[in-house]
């Protein structure tokens, strides 16, 4: 038994498994992962997922290969006799190297994730004062997402504060979502856009996305918001800019009477609580 260098064998098996598995994950599995490549942010998330999975794969193979090897090589071959293994109580070099390697992976992950997030916000909700604004955020198209039980509405400050029941966005444009709620906590999840931002009552939650070509995307509420939460979904569209202009003009015209009755555009709304009679 002692002639066999188990450590070297484990390392070799791990190298073999890693060399096979990692390219499969990085080049085959990960690029096809959602949320796809519909927007700049969704492409960014795919890159991010690829890096994370690419790093996780050697870790996973290390643990799995070790366990499989140990369970095969060190299984009890004489179960009738109760014999003990050698009293090994630790190995300081291995412990120190384990700490160094896992720390390095963790610090890299945190640093990488922070840099990626600070780059453009990655489509996540950032609260009222976003720290990660993409370039050209001053000229972004502002869309207010107003969630209520159980419906999203969209208000357009750049177009006379009109409120539309559906969402269409111009292609190749930086969009600035202002997500808020009138009642309970919702979450605005535009899946293919790679946008998710919680809609909190009394909070203006900002998320950025840069659209690419025309597409249809799913919108779903991602925070449990009451009985009909499961039905709070709809489809939105990214359309060419000219088509968007005619759509929003038509909406302004159609909802002109309603717009007059709406209150002024605000970042947050506080519907008055009712008392029971």
């Amino acid at each position, binding site marked *: 038994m002692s002639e066999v260098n188990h450590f070297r064998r484990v390392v070799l098996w791990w190298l073999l498994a890693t060399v096979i598995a990692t390219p499969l994950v990085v080049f085959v599995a990960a690029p096809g992962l959602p949320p796809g490549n519909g927007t700049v942010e969704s492409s960014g998330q795919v890159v991010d997922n690829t890096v994370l999975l690419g790093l996780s794969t050697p870790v996973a193979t290390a643990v799995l290969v070790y366990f499989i090897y140990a369970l095969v090589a060190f299984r009890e071959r004489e179960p009738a006799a109760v014999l003990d293994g050698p009293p090994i*109580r630790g190995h300081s070099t291995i412990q120190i190297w384990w*700490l160094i390697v896992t720390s390095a992976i*963790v610090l890299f992950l945190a640093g990488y994730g922070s840099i990626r997030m600070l780059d453009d916000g990655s489509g996540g909700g950032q609260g009222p004062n976003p720290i990660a604004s993409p370039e050209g955020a001053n000229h972004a198209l502002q869309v207010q997402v107003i969630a209520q039980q159980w419906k999203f509405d969209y208000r357009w400050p750049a177009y006379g504060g009109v409120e539309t029941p559906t969402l269409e966005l111009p292609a190749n444009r930086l969009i600035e979502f202002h997500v808020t709620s009138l009642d309970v906590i919702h979450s605005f999840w535009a899946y293919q856009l790679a946008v998710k931002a919680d809609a909190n009552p009394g909070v203006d939650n900002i998320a950025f996305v840069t659209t690419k070509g025309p597409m249809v995307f799913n919108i*779903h509420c991602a925070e449990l918001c009451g009985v009909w939460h499961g039905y709070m979904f709809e489809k939105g569209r990214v359309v060419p800019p000219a088509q968007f202009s005619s759509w929003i003009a038509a909406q302004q015209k159609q909802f002109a009477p309603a717009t007059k009755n709406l209150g002024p555009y605000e970042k947050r709304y506080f519907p008055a609580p009712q008392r029971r009679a």
Partner: protein
Amino acid sequence: MTSIAISAGRQPAWRRFLGFNLLTGIVLAVVGWLIGDWIGGLIHAPSLDYFKVGTGENDIGIMLGYLFGVIGFLVGLGFANYPVRRLLGHPPTLAEHESEGEGVGRYFRLCTDHKVVAIQYIIGIGVFFLVGGINAMLIRTELLQPNVHAFGANQYLTLVGMHGAMMMGIMTSGVLGPFANWLVPLMIGTRRMAFPRVESFTFWLLMAAGVVLITTIFMGGFQTGWTGYQPLGDQGTAGYDAYIGFFALVGLSMCLLGFNLLATIITMRAPGMTWTRLPIFVWSVFATAILMLLAAPMLIAALLMGGLDRTIQTAFYVAGNGGSAYLYQNLFWVFGHPEVYIVAIPGFGIVLELLPVFARKPLWGYRLAVAGMLGVALLSFFVWQHHLFVSGINADLRPFYMLSTELISLPTGFTFLCAMGTLWRGRIRFTVPMLFCLAWAFNFLIGGLSGVLLSDVPSDVTTHGSFFSMAHFHYTIMGGLVFTVFAAIYYWGPKMTGFNFNERLAKIHFWTMFIAFNSTFAPLFALGFLGMPRRVVTYPANLQPLNDWVSVSAFCLGLSMLVFLVNLIWSMLFKREPAAANPWNSKSAEWQLPTPVPVHDFDRFPVFDPDPYPYGVEPATGPALSPAGAGS
């Protein structure tokens, strides 16, 4: 008062029903409920109706009903006797302790024997685990089809909420309740817990909590899931009052359980049982107990404010009235993230306690394992806002929470390293408990690595709140805790009950559970990536094949649990094959005692081997323990 309980064995059958027992407890619970409801009716003021629901329910009456009902239940069980007697000037006693020798009856009343409370915990938690599991089966039945077919939307959400609350509330004590209560006194060499009445109190409080949650069915259910987010809860019908009552009682039970275990481990170790000689399981209990003691009060505070919102018209969580929905999310997750480690760390302890026995080697890296558990416990208080990455709260702090969340994988990694090191060049025996421990390693690896995608803000944007996160925490909690609980049941069960399990059924249970578990939860990662949010009653039609696969696998998982139940009932009630004193050839202290363990555990202070894992070496001292009845 307690004399009735002491001499119950000699009395006629009808006489035993009088006095302080479970029956009296139930009667007084009903009486208490009626009194509370009546008082509530007297002081009822029109509640705020922020959402124009206009149900006209008297939430004050319901809350007071629960409060008085639970107090009545506990008084009926006899928890008031001792304080009252002390107030009246009677000398301190441990009278309840003497009711142990009475057979089955002691399991149905206040008993201060730590071994009896542990069995009570196993059965009681098992019943609610079964309820939670049946809820899961019903959830998966509804999700067989993309549209509502089996239940309505409201019923579905109530099932989801009850499943989550049962599992996260009751099962939180799934290791510390049964196994820590049973093992810690034996492992550290004492006859009882520091506060034996508190020990019993935590159990009966937990049972009362479970019943309170079940009453939600009769009051319209609750629509909030186990997280109970506000202000959705403010809007909920009376069923949400049951949720508040349930979780507040669970929080109190958890807090006291942790407090009791901490006091026991710190003050009641036998002479010579120094900190570095504690079995690793005791260390895991120690780390978990710290979390329980410190985290649970946050939950109680959050729920108390919710209860005040609903009854006496405060507005802690109503944005328009100066409150904030963030407040609840913050408080809940300050509790909620330590909570998931309360669930995970005992699993680490069980695995590291069992691996040396079945690899026939000392624990590899004892100090590292201790550092890992304490490190996880410490760090778990600094990660809670990763649940709120896209909520817009403290967006500037997201890099910090990303770092702290990923840092927690370092101490978790220590546990893995110690497990791997223990196997190295061992003589590994594939017993049933060992198989469950190895399954833990596989499941927790997947759970941990999928957590990387959730801890990273850019990839969390898509995975947050989706089935992906659902799969992640089922891998860590069910794959982590439930598998280790079964390892513990198969390992310590024969010692605790005195009877062996049927090994063939146990192996069938393991393999069906392991395969069905992975077949159920691995596809959920895909469903999350494909855009399915959590807690929805409908989903796109193209996700139906995958959902059906998951549902069928979940039913198989449920059947594997039935195999266990059959094994348990058959082995413990019918076959009753007496267990050997030390069937695993373990060198831990508890296995050196006879089976079943004598009522008073030890006759005198035990002398422990300085090495908790003396495998491969001769024990340094002579006979390690002096069990009760062995003479001296």
